[in-house]
C-alpha cells in the first residue's frame, strides 16, 4: 500500500482515515497510473516472519516468538535500486532471506510479476529462483574454499543447465569474470588467492551467471576496505545499467545507500518506519527514528561538526521477542505520547503532509511526523574550492 497516495495524488482516497487499508482494486488502480516506473517486478505485501521460541526437549511447546519481520510491504521496480537501512537486529537480513525464499514467511505475500512465490516449491520455485539472485556480505565465508573460481561461478549452470549447454560453460564463466573486472585466466584459481574486493567480484559474478532480473545484496561492501568499496559500488552500478537489474540493497552505511539507491526504506524492529525516494528520506525525513539515525551518522567534514544538531538516542533496540506495544520506536522516542503506546501507526503519508506537494509527502509510520530537514543538513558548508577535487581520472 506504500505508494498509493504518492502515485495517484488523490488525497480524497483515505478520507483522512489513516488506518483504513486499501483494497486490491484500489492498489491496482493506483499502479495503473504509474507510467513512469512501469509494473513493479516485486511486490511485498504484509510480509511477516516470526521465529518460534520453544521450551522443553521432548515435548516442545512454543512460549513466544521473535518477531523478526512484522507486516512490511514495499515494491521493487525494474531497473531500480531499493535501499534498506536499519540497525542490526531490525530484520533487514531476514527480509533478504524471505525474498530469496530461503525462509518461509509466517504470513504475507511476495509477488514476483504478480505471482506469489513464497509458497512455491519444486520445479516452479526453481524456475523463479533463476531470476532472483543474491550477493552475500562476507566474501571470505560465502565462497567454498575447495572449489575453483570456475566451479563457483559455474555452479548455477549445473542447477539450471538450460542457461548454458555443457560445452559452453567455461567460456561463459570467463565472460562473467571479464564482466566483473577479473582476469579470465584466473578461472582455475581458488578463493584464497584473491583479495577481499576480488572475492566480492566473484560473488557478484556468481549472482549474475543466470541473467537474473533481481539481485539481493546483503551488505555487499561492508567487509571491504574503504578504498576498495568504491570500486565494487561502481561495478554494481555499471552492471545495473548494462543488464537492467533491480537491486535490493541492504546496508548500514547510509552514505553508500544514498549514493546507489533510487528509493530507500528505513526499518526498525521488524517494521518499515519510513520509505521514499532517496531525497525524500535523506533531506526531508519525517519519522523521528530516521531523523535520529541520519543525525548520528558522522559526516566526513569537520566543518560541520559543531553546527550539526545531533539527536542521540538513549538505550538500545528492544528485543524483537517482546516488542513494545503500539509504535515500536516509542521507548526511545522523544516525541512519544500516550497514543503511541496504544495504537500502531500505519505506514502512510502522515496527515500533515497529505495535501502538501513536496518532499515531505512520503510514507512515514509516525503519528507526530514532522519535516526536519535541518537534521541532516545544518547549514550546507561551502564545497571545497579546490577545482582539482572531484572526479579526477
Amino acid at each position, binding site marked *: 500500500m506504500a505508494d498509493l497516495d504518492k502515485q495517484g495524488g488523490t488525497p480524497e482516497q483515505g478520507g483522512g482515515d489513516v488506518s483504513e487499508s486499501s483494497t486490491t482494486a484500489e492498489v491496482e488502480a493506483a499502479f495503473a497510473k504509474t507510467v513512469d516506473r512501469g509494473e513493479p517486478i516485486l511486490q511485498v505485501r504484509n510480509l511477516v516472519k516470526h521465529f518460534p521460541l520453544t521450551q522443553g526437549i521432548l515435548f516442545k511447546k512454543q512460549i513466544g516468538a521473535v518477531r523478526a519481520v512484522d507486516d512490511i510491504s514495499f515494491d521493487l521496480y525494474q531497473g531500480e535500486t531499493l535501499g534498506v537501512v536499519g*540497525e*542490526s537486529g531490525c530484520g533487514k537480513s531476514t527480509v533478504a532471506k524471505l525474498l530469496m525464499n530461503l525462509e518461509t514467511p509466517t504470513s504475507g505475500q511476495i509477488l514476483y510479476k504478480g505471482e506469489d512465490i513464497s509458497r512455491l516449491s519444486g520445479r516452479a520455485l526453481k524456475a523463479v529462483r533463476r531470476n532472483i539472485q543474491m550477493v552475500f556480505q562476507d566474501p571470505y565465508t560465502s565462497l567454498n574454499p575447495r572449489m575453483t573460481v570456475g566451479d563457483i561461478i559455474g555452479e548455477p549452470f549445473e542447477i539450471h543447465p538450460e542457461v548454458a549447454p555443457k560445452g559452453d560453460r567455461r567460456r561463459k564463466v570467463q565472460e562473467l569474470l571479464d564482466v566483473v573486472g577479473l582476469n579470465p585466466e584466473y578461472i582455475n584459481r581458488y578463493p584464497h588467492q584473491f*583479495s577481499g*574486493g*576480488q572475492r566480492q567480484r566473484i560473488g557478484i559474478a556468481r549472482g549474475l551467471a543466470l541473467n537474473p532480473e533481481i539481485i539481493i545484496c546483503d551488505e555487499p561492501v561492508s567487509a571491504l*576496505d*574503504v*578504498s*576498495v*568499496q*568504491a*570500486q565494487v*559500488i*561502481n561495478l554494481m*552500478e*555499471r552492471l545495473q545499467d548494462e543488464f537492467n537489474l533491480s537491486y535490493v540493497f541492504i546496508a*548500514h552505511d*547510509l*552514505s*553508500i545507500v*544514498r*549514493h546507489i539507491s533510487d528509493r530507500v526504506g528505513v526499518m526498525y524492529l521488524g517494521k518499515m518506519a519510513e520509505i521514499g525516494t*532517496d531525497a525524500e528520506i535523506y533531506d526531508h525525513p519525517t519519522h523521528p527514528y530516521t531523523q*535520529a*539515525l541520519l543525525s*548520528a*551518522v*558522522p*559526516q*566526513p*567534514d*569537520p*566543518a560541520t*561538526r*559543531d553546527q550539526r544538531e*545531533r539527536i*542521540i*538516542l*538513549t*538505550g*538500545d*533496540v528492544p528485543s524483537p521477542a517482546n516488542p513494545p506495544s503500539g509504535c515500536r520506536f516509542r521507548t526511545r522516542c522523544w516525541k512519544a505520547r500516550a497514543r503511541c503506546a496504544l495504537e500502531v501507526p500505519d505506514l502512510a503519508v502522515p496527515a500533515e503532509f497529505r495535501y502538501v506537494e513536496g518532499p515531505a509527502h512520503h510514507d512515514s509510520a509516525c503519528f507526530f511526523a514532522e519535516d526536519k530537514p535541518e537534521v541532516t543538513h545544518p547549514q550546507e558548508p561551502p*564545497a*571545497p574550492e*579546490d*577545482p*582539482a*577535487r*572531484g*572526479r*579526477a*581520472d
Partner: protein
Amino acid sequence: MTTTQKTADLPAAKSADSAGTPLLQVKDLHVEFHTRDGVVKAINGVNYSVDSGETLAVLGESGSGKSVTAQAIMGILDMPPGRIPSGEILYRGQDMLTMSGEERRKIRGRKIAMIFQDALSSLNPVLSVGYQLGEMFRVHQGLSKKDAKAKAIELMDRVRIPAAKERVNDYPHQFSGGMRQRIMIAMALALEPDLIIADEPTTALDVTVQAQVMDLLAELQREYNMGLILITHDLGVVADVADKIAVMYAGRIVETAPVHELYKRPAHPYTKGLLDSIPRLDHKGSELYAIKGLPPNMARVPAGCAFNPRCDRAQDICRTEVPALHPVTEQDGTTLVGRGSACHFWKETIHG
C-alpha cells in the same frame, strides 16, 4: 568537541613535565614480523606525538600497520614473531622500549590504557563483568574483592550503564554490543590513565549506538584531560572527534595534518583518493572516484613509494625513491603547522 587547552587544574607535578615534552611520542618506530615466508616489515618509521587532552586519529586501511603501532606502544605485541629493530616510544620523555618489564607494567593500564575493537572477544565469557572490572583494582592497587566490586559499580555508573548495582554480576553475553563497549571503556578508565588508545572502538556498533559511545568517550576525555589515540578507518568518525590526523599506508605515515586542514586540502594522493571516494551529494548518479588496485601485501611492498602502483601522479622517481615526510607549506613558502606529506609531488597535490 574535545578541548585542546592544557588545563591549569592539573597537579603541579604533571604540568611541570608536560610543558616541553609531549605526553607520548613515537619516534622512527620499526616493527617487523619474522614468518615462514620471510620478514614482513609491518611498520617502517612511524613518528607521532600526543599531548594531554588531545585527540590524534590514526587513519588507515586494514594492513596499514595502525593497530600494530598501538600494540607496540602498549607492549602487547607478540614477540616473537614480532620484533622492534629500532625506534623509540617516549612516555613523558622516558623510552618505554628500554624499560624493564616491571617498569612497563607500572605504566600499562595505569598510565596508558587501551580500548579494543571487539568487546565480546576481549572480555572473558566465564567471568562476570564486575570481577573483570575489579581486577584492575585488585592487581594494580591491591584492593580486596569487596572494595574492588564497589569500585566496579562506581565505574559502571560513570560510563552510564543503567542499574549498575544489579548488573555487576552479569556476564558479558548478557549485555548488548553498546553496553559491552562501555564496559571496555570503563576498564580502560579504571585507573584514570593519562592516555587512552582506542582501536576501532565503534566499528562493530550501529550508528545510533556509535554516537552514544563516541559522545561518552569525548566527555570522559574532557573530564580527565586525557590524551586519546583513535585508530579507525572511518573518515566520518575522524572528522567528528579528532584534533589532528595521521594517515597510514603500508606501515608508514603518509600524511599528517590538523583535522580541518586535511579534509579541506589533502596533500597526499592517497588521502585525496580516500576523500574523493566518499559518496557525495552532488555526485549522485555519477561514478564514484575509486582508487585503483589493492592495498599492498606487506611481505612484498612495492619499491619506492608504496602507493605508486595505485597513484595517478606516479613518476619514475616514485618507483625508486621512498619519499620522506616533507613539511607542507603554502604556495608562498609559509609553513603550515603540523602538516607533512610523504609524497614527491605534494606541492602539485595540495596546490593543484
